[in-house]
């Protein structure tokens, strides 16, 4: 592939030769920065015809997430495709370009008392396109749901340059197949999203975040209270179990900690806080952040894990994983993940949603130490019919540990979906499960 060919499609200043290599892989020989949907369509059509392999990026925060190619012929950067297209405030929906960073969107919405119901990692870097492509969620998923729940419509460019609309701009829609679901969470392997329409929520009148610290940190210590809380009529926005090192970073206490959040009218927040106080067993520490303070805690939380754009430490690179479990298994998993790491001389940061079953861990270490640890943890999780996806690993490591795990899934059907949408395997080749 040559710059000449690209020059016909984009002005020269928006085409660049990429850096020699990146330990996270997923690089492109050329980086193209389209500003319009038609430019994307032209680039893709051209690539598809020539048999080039294309990867797509936004803020680059997921560069270490999946992918068995160190390099693609072209990296399509959507960083210049940003901004709000249409914010229908009265309808509580917004249409936004895919390359818009989450924080930029959140700031715009906040001016109107609204928000995206999503608290993903690294909101300053991560773009709405990337968050949707990875179906990324944060601790408040318990109340927010996931991108698959709030995406209403998309504009998608197919590998052959066709531009399709999926879904619509209204909050209820069953016309035709729910084609949004094809692209949400598909890691950019089926099409390139250019515009995304999402359902919004009002900003909460009040909020609080309570850190409850448990001296033992055992299931016997935490579970009874958790069960009481789960079977109550309280409406927590988050119910996260933190291991001691993470609790130290966020709450300043080196103990197993339960983070409980409420967002509602002040009276309702007060009422729930009171319930927690009244039911808290003896000997359990409690710290509370209210209003702005709680908000700042969440902001800090979102910046904790490793992310793509940082140049990784080559001796002791970072690794991260997302784990899915039944929510009742969260406490035992967080404890097991912590203990198994310590057995191997590793220090792991871990938290998990005791109401939604999605947990996250991250750590630093050598390949020889980290990969067997992740494999061991995965076998524990898969035995319980859950999954472990290593969503941030150096490229070399990804060749040695299947990022997506061993769960038997209806892979034949997925392969046929890929073949149908991207027969030449132009887009994000080998980025997804089973080498799709």
């Amino acid at each position, binding site marked *: 592939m040559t710059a000449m060919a690209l020059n016909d499609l984009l002005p020269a200043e928006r085409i660049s030769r990429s850096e020699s290599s990146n330990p996270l892989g997923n690089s492109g020989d050329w980086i193209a920065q389209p500003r319009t949907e038609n430019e994307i369509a032209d680039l893709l059509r051209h690539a598809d015809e020539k048999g080039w392999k294309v990867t797509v990026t936004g803020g680059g925060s997921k560069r270490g997430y999946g992918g068995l190619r160190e390099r693609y012929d072209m990296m399509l950067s959507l960083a210049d495709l940003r901004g709000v297209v249409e914010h229908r405030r009265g309808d509580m929906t917004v249409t936004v370009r895919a390359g818009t960073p989450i924080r930029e969107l959140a700031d715009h919405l906040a001016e109107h008392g609204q928000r995206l119901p999503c608290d993903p990692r690294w909101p300053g870097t991560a773009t709405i396109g990337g968050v949707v492509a990875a*179906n990324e969620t944060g601790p408040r998923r318990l109340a927010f749901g996931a991108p698959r729940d709030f995406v209403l419509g998309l504009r998608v460019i197919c590998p052959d340059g066709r531009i399709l609309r999926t879904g619509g701009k209204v909050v209820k829609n069953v016309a035709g*197949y729910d084609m949004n679901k094809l692209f949400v969470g598909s890691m950019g392997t089926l099409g390139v999203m250019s515009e995304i329409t999402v359902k919004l929520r009002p900003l909460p009148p009040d909020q609080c975040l309570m850190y409850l610290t448990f001296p033992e940190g055992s299931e016997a210590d935490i579970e009874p209270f958790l069960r009481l809380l789960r079977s*109550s009529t309280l409406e927590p926005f988050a119910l996260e179990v933190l291991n001691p090192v993470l609790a130290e970073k966020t709450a300043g206490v080196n103990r197993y900690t339960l983070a409980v959040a409420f967002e509602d009218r002040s009276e309702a927040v007060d009422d729930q806080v009171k319930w927690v106080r009244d039911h808290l067993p003896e000997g359990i520490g409690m710290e509370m952040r209210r209003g702005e303070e709680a908000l700042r805690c969440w902001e800090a939380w979102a910046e904790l894990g490793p992310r793509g754009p940082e140049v990784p430490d080559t001796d002791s690179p970072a690794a991260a994983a997302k784990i899915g479990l039944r929510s009742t298994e969260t406490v035992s998993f967080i404890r097991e993940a912590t203990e198994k790491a310590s057995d191997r001389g590793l220090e792991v940061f871990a938290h998990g949603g005791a109401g939604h079953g999605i947990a996250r861990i991250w750590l630093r270490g050598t390949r020889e130490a980290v990969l067997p640890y992740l494999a061991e943890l995965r076998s524990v999780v898969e035995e319980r*019919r859950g999954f472990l996806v290593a969503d941030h690993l150096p490229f070399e490591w990804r060749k040695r540990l299947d990022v997506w795990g061993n769960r038997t899934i209806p892979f034949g*059907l997925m392969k046929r979906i890929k073949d149908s949408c991207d027969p030449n395997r132009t887009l994000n080749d080998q980025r997804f499960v089973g080498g799709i």
Partner: protein
Amino acid sequence: MFGRKKRRLDPLIRQLMEWVGETNVLYRREDLVAYECDGFTLKKGEARAVVFPADTREVAAVVRLLHRENVPFIARGAGTGLSGGATPLGGEVIISLVKMKKLLRVDLDNRIAVVQPGFVNLKLTQSIADRGYYYAPDPSSQYACTIGGNVAENAGGAHCLKYGVTTNHILGAEVVLPDGEVIRIGDEGIPDMPGYDLLGLLTGSEGTLGIVTEITVRILKAPQGKQTLLAYFDDVEEASRAVSDIISAGILPAALEMMDRTAIEAVESANFPVGHPLDIEALLLVEVDGIEAGLKSQVEDITELCRRRNVREVKTARDEKEAAAWWANRKTGFGAMGAISPDYLVQDGVIPRSTLPEVLGKIREISRDTGLRIANIFHAGDGNLHPLILFDERKPGEKERALEAGSRCLKVCAEVGGTITGEHGVGIEKREEMRFVFTKEEIAAQIRLRDVFNPGNLLNPGKGFPQPGRCAEVKQEIKERRMAEG
């Protein structure tokens, strides 16, 4: 004698009987009549047979057989669908899932329940209500409709505004694909399983991608408190603006329903009258739920917002009994049309909430043009309209005018940036209207997806998409109708 009779049977029927037992196959014409349509009654067709499998193994066996014999087939639940999704076009074998109606497992700690597809929606809530839990999607037909059918249609209901539609509550499924292969997706109710979102694609596919034989759903804790308000307006536009005001104020009601004057006349003449004044132009039924302590101020805010829109009267339900009566009055609204009109056709467009006054005005125009009364009962908070077009099938031409009025209502919805169906599905009814919202290419992309799951198009053929030979078909239909009318 029995033997001889059997030998004369269609060999396919005999083979079906071998799999599910003789008593679980219907094939005589008189037995098939009940299956010639679903809740959309304007189009009917004759099935070749109806089978009642008892479990996944039997469903898979029947599907494999039909796939091998190249016979089209349809999965059917309670038949309450409103767009003809379960209606045979002619010659299909209907796989009825009503005998697979068990509640298999409830796990309150993890807030999931596992049901068979024939399990009735409302029964799930009834089974767990004593422990303070419920299943959120609540279509008006919930006393009869099955969760399998809800998955096929991505059913909605009055409480979608806050809690979402069926797709937001389905966590796993066992599915028989159109060639008989059985797959499981997210079976422990664990979200985000690696891979494409097959579950999301299946939900709302109107029974054209696969047959669900087991479903894992999310259940919710019943809210601590609930308040229900009724607001009576002398002006439809003021009522519409009040809806937008409530949402814009950052209040997220569990439900926000509206009825217009014609609809009120009908519900007050039907089985569940509650004494709504008959001279108002619109009413809003609003429910807020959540932490008890936060409800009082929400009720006050809603009341104040309605006052600013010149509401005639706002009242809060005194107790659960009164709220339940208001809801029964609303939920039986479609059927209530029978009290004021021999026939009615219900439509299901969705619009951006803010265009409500404009669209209601256009629907009034359509009513004037076609000379048919149109009642409006709808989920105003979602912008999901249900224009009910009243007609008399015995009067020549009225049925056609009703269909035309329905189609025009959908066109209006599409033109303001909305869609042609919010919860009832495309089915047979809205196949052509798909063109109001999708280009030829976008429809082709959807058909390509269907081909991935259902390559021979044997599962529920002819549904959901515009028909290529539409012109010829319409002519044929008109010819048939004339012949029938003699």
